[in-house]
């Protein structure tokens, strides 16, 4: 199997797998969604809330804020040596204290150590008017996407077969119907020839095949080449998330091997 990054940014990756099968890429996809540990706020103690939102809504909004996750420094609370009471190696504490008139942002969450400071500081949590107050304490812990969506690292993950477009130059009469039908603007007529601009952008909708009266164009997906793309919410980088997913998959197969 060959792996190539078609695009790699901090929070976004587009990967091409070659010589592979859909079930293999699907295993990676499912691990990325459900099994990577991530830090998120789980327990909130509210001391004062005179804002327009209920305590529960605020706690829910806090939970959805992506927190930076240093996986080498943290354990799951259940598996921690403290026995689930909450210690520095399984729990991260945040405090928030704000009085109106203002908007409370995620950046107002103060961690005990600056390394846990929230990545995206501009998420509005609630709006306060004059004399309204919000004072709370929050505990964040590790979890996985299987248990709650707030612990899901990746979003918008999906894969598709690599598109193949075959043009029969003898049948093609350059009418341009397929160029107009393509929603992704992939086809063009250049120097009296129908050519393809960027094949990765094809979504295999086959509109061009339907539009062609001469049956000169054919589109299908190559099962052995798969393009996968995903975003992360900022708690882990796209590369780290993939590394972690592969580590987890590897561990699972090792366990299976031991049983045999």
């Amino acid at each position: 199997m060959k792996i190539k990054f078609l695009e790699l940014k901090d929070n976004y990756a587009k990967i091409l797998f070659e010589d592979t099968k859909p079930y293999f890429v699907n295993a990676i996809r499912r691990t990325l969604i459900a099994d990577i540990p991530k830090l998120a706020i789980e327990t909130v103690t509210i001391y004062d809330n005179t804002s327009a939102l209920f305590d529960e809504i605020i706690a829910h909004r806090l939970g959805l804020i992506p927190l930076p996750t240093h996986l080498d420094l943290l354990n799951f609370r259940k598996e921690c040596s403290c026995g689930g009471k909450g210690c520095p190696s399984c729990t991260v504490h945040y405090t928030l204290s704000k009085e109106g008139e203002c908007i409370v942002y995620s950046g107002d969450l103060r961690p005990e150590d600056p390394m846990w400071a929230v990545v995206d500081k501009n998420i509005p949590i609630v709006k306060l008017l004059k004399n309204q107050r919000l004072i709370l304490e929050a505990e964040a812990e590790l979890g996985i996407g299987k248990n709650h969506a707030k612990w899901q690292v990746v979003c918008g993950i999906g894969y598709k077969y690599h598109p193949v477009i075959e043009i029969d130059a003898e049948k093609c009469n350059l009418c341009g119907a397929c160029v107009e039908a393509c929603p992704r603007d992939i086809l063009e007529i250049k120097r009296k020839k129908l050519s393809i601009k960027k094949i990765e952008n094809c979504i295999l909708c086959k509109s061009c095949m339907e539009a062609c009266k001469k049956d000169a164009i054919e589109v299908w997906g190559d099962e052995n080449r798969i393009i996968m793309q995903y975003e992360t919410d900022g708690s882990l980088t796209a590369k780290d998330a993939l590394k972690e997913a592969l580590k987890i998959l590897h561990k699972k197969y090792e366990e299976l091997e031991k049983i045999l």
Partner: protein
Amino acid sequence: MIMPIRCFTCGKVLASLFEEYKKRVYIEGEEPKKVLDDLGIRRYCCRRTIISHPVFMKDGEVKELIDEAAQYE
């Protein structure tokens, strides 16, 4: 009420992008399509979450329902 933190469907963080969207679309009158593309919002699930979030104009400012509700504790 107040902008949801994440996209209902895919979970992308949107609340932090909404302030720029609000400013550029409702005050400066830009085309929503262009602003969404600039903000890097690719999927249609995220695009509808942003587009369909209700706001209204009052005293020349873009308000959300929370601005009205905030008077009542």
